[in-house]
């Protein structure tokens, strides 16, 4: 009996071994190495890289957090509106259109948004035509432009997850609320959002992680100073060959994401403990 179980365990272990190996080589080893290098200063272990990173990039850390938070808020708002609308109404055009950015590479998004949000770009042209105001600022090199670019490219992922969760909620839960006198807005607040909370959390965590780790879009859209941490990391390596500070910035990003992940995991544990379907 014992031998049979041991064989079974070994077989199970062998099955997950390739995935473990990939995780080890591509994630755990580089992570440990990055953490190690971030503490390495002229061949000695110390906090100098972090001191320098905070001295040079304190504003960028705050800016990165601000842009990421603003993106998450806008993505949340947009995805709620579109997912709620599509939960109740079958509008094929919107259903296709919201997915469009999913198929556009980040580089193209960056370029398109630069053209769209420039001072004499498409957006200002349309606003000028509609309002008659001709002196409009270009958003392409401002934080708002960067946030809008992130929101445009990341909203479809969030909508896809949240709409999937909304559609998976049995119609009877929605109808029971309508039947008792609730309007559709109340149904969204009282029934759909609470029941889809785990999926909404996943969508927002993914949006946060993808925004904070994005390089291409902040390189092409938004101000050059302050800028986001991945851009700083790239410049630190490309222009100064300073792996220590670059890795320190990487670890700082990682700590922020880990903090969020801990919060998410705690939420999921509470959610599962409280809700047994």
């Amino acid at each position, binding site marked *: 009996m014992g031998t049979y179980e041991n064989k079974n365990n070994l077989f199970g272990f062998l099955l997950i071994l390739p995935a473990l190996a990939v995780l080890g080589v591509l994630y755990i080893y580089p992570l440990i190495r990055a953490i190690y290098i971030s503490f390495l200063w002229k061949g000695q272990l110390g906090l100098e890289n972090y001191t320098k990173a905070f001295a040079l990039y304190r504003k960028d850390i705050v800016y990165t957090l601000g842009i990421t938070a603003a993106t998450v808020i806008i993505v949340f708002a947009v995805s709620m509106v579109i997912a709620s609308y599509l939960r109740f109404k079958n509008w094929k055009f919107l259903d296709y259109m919201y997915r469009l950015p999913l198929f556009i590479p980040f580089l193209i998004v960056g370029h398109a948004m630069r053209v769209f949000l420039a001072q004499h770009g498409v957006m200002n042209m349309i606003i000028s035509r509609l309002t008659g105001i001709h002196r409009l600022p270009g958003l392409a090199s401002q934080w708002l432009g960067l946030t809008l670019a992130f929101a445009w490219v990341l909203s479809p992922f969030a909508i896809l997850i949240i709409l999937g969760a909304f559609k998976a909620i*049995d119609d*009877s839960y929605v*109808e*029971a609320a309508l039947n*008792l*006198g609730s*309007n559709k807005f109340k149904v969204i607040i009282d*029934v759909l959002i*609470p*029941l889809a909370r785990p999926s909404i959390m996943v969508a927002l965590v993914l949006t946060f992680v993808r925004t904070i780790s994005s390089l291409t879009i902040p390189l092409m859209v938004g101000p050059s100073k302050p800028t986001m941490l991945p851009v700083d990391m790239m410049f630190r390596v490309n222009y100064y060959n300073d792996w220590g500070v670059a890795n320190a910035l990487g670890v700082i990003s990682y700590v922020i994401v880990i903090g969020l992940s801990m919060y998410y995991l705690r939420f999921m544990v509470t959610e599962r403990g409280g809700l047994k379907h």
Partner: protein
Amino acid sequence: MATVVTKGLKKFYGDVHALDDVSLDIEEGTLLAVIGPSGSGKTTLLRSIAGFVKLDAGKIYLDGEDITHVPPEKRNISMFFQNYALWPHMTVYNNIAYGLRLRKYNKNEIAEKIRWVLQLLDIEGLEDRKPSQLSGGQQQRIALARAIVVEPKVLLLDEPLSNLDAKIRLRIRFEIKALQQKLRLTTLYVTHDQEEALSIADKVAIMHNGKILQIGDPQEIYTKPATLFVADFVGTNNVIEKKGYVRDGVKFVNLGKLVLQAPPNVDVNKVNIVFRADEVEIERRNEEIPGYDYRFDGTISGKLYMGFKFRYEVTVDDENKDIKVIVNSDKDFSIGDKIGVFLKKDKVFIF
């Protein structure tokens, strides 16, 4: 409480006629049960009255007011869902309180009403539990409590007992009937269980292919079925299709040696003789049972012990050797026994 009237309701899903000219009245304070097989349109009818189905034609009136285009949230018609639809993230208290909060009752009034309904349905003490922590029977009562606590004009019950086991179902039938009578709730009760409908309803409607075939009180439906479908659907029945004949302008059909007169409107090429398994008596071939009008002979070809009775399959002594009927009896026969089957005139329907 209110009166519900539907006039000429039509709903098509492609070629399927979910509702095909459905007109009915539910009188104030009464319970109308709608029965029919799966896909007959009974749930579509219920959902139309609740406001969840966009009708292709027809009108729905509540107390004389046309509510056909009134959205569900403004009808004040409560629906009990087959799967209960209790929100899993809310406690029992919040589930029941939901409709009351929307009606802007204050906290004390809500607490008072919830106390009343929990007491009425004998489910006190469950207020702080989540639906997943309740048994099926408790969930069923909470869903019922949520539906009636808002004092709806009409209560719609969609297969309310279908998820419960047989024993609880029987008990709750009595409770629902008593509750409906106590509160004088105008109720539409949808079920596929004809015994449930007959036992609980003031009136019964039989639906098939989107049409209402017959509406009447339970006894009328049972004793005077208007169509072959109704006769076949209500009760455990034998339907024997035979070719009839006309003699001196009168239509007849034979079953073995038994000669039955058929109504003038039947098609003699396809006459259906219907009688219920419980409404016949059997005896050995050489014996007679007084008080019965008809008799045909047959041979026991199958036997099941049902606990309270035996269920026999009888092969009829007819020129068509394939005619088999089911009869229930408390007499003990063996397979191969030759018997006579006795029927009363008013228990045999010919279509």
